[in-house]
């Protein structure tokens, strides 16, 4: 066995290129969505229980602190969705060169940024 293999890479000492930051954010958004599934299932349950609980969950999802959870989850969903589509496109062999990968990463940030703003309009307007 080769004893000179690099081991225990210290991620905190890396300088990450832009597409790598887009990628790690995709992972973070995924974890947020996993945890957020608890809220989504609670909301689905309440919304289907009765007219009163439908009105109550609608109110708590669109006002106060709850509206920030709704917007946060929609934002994570929008980002994970767009970054995921980039993944699928890259599976087709598109966007694998340095330049095209940087363009693709920028597109993910711009498109998901627009969707996140629109999600805010949806929740609060």
């Amino acid at each position, binding site marked *: 066995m080769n004893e000179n293999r690099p081991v225990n890479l210290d991620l905190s000492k890396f300088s990450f290129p832009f597409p790598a930051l887009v990628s790690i954010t995709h992972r973070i958004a*995924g*974890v947020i*969505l*996993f945890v957020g599934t608890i809220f989504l*299932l609670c909301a689905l*349950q309440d919304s289907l229980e009765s*007219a009163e609980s439908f009105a109550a969950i609608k109110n708590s999802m669109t006002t106060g602190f709850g509206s920030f959870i709704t917007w946060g989850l929609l934002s994570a*969903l929008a980002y994970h*969705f767009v970054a*995921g589509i980039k993944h699928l496109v890259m599976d087709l062999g598109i966007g694998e060169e340095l330049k095209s990968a940087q363009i693709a990463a920028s597109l993910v940030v711009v498109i998901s940024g627009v969707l996140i703003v629109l999600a805010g309009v949806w929740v609060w307007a």
Partner: protein
Amino acid sequence: MGVSITNFSRSGLSDWLIQRFTAVVMALYTVFIVGYILSTPGLDYSQWKEFFECTGVRIFTLLALISVVAHAWIGMWIISTDYIKPAVLRFAFQATCFLTMFVFLVWGIDIIWGL
């Protein structure tokens, strides 16, 4: 890279494929639900309940839920093997994720079909 002895399907290729398939299912479901809500202004309880009483909507919702659980399992497993080095901690994290997903699945089925 270590040998993956604990991932669910025991094959990186099938993990890769499941991750893509479930992603497409969830993307379509997201567009479907967001599209329904946006195209139904003033959505009220009776419309919403009627919508989820459709067998097709229930099946699609269950398919999306199973996709969430499978996709999240593969994703969280990859994250745990990338960032959590101590084996005991990693196993505890994976076990917690697994139990959480099991609860999501059973709870979700109860919500969708237990009306």
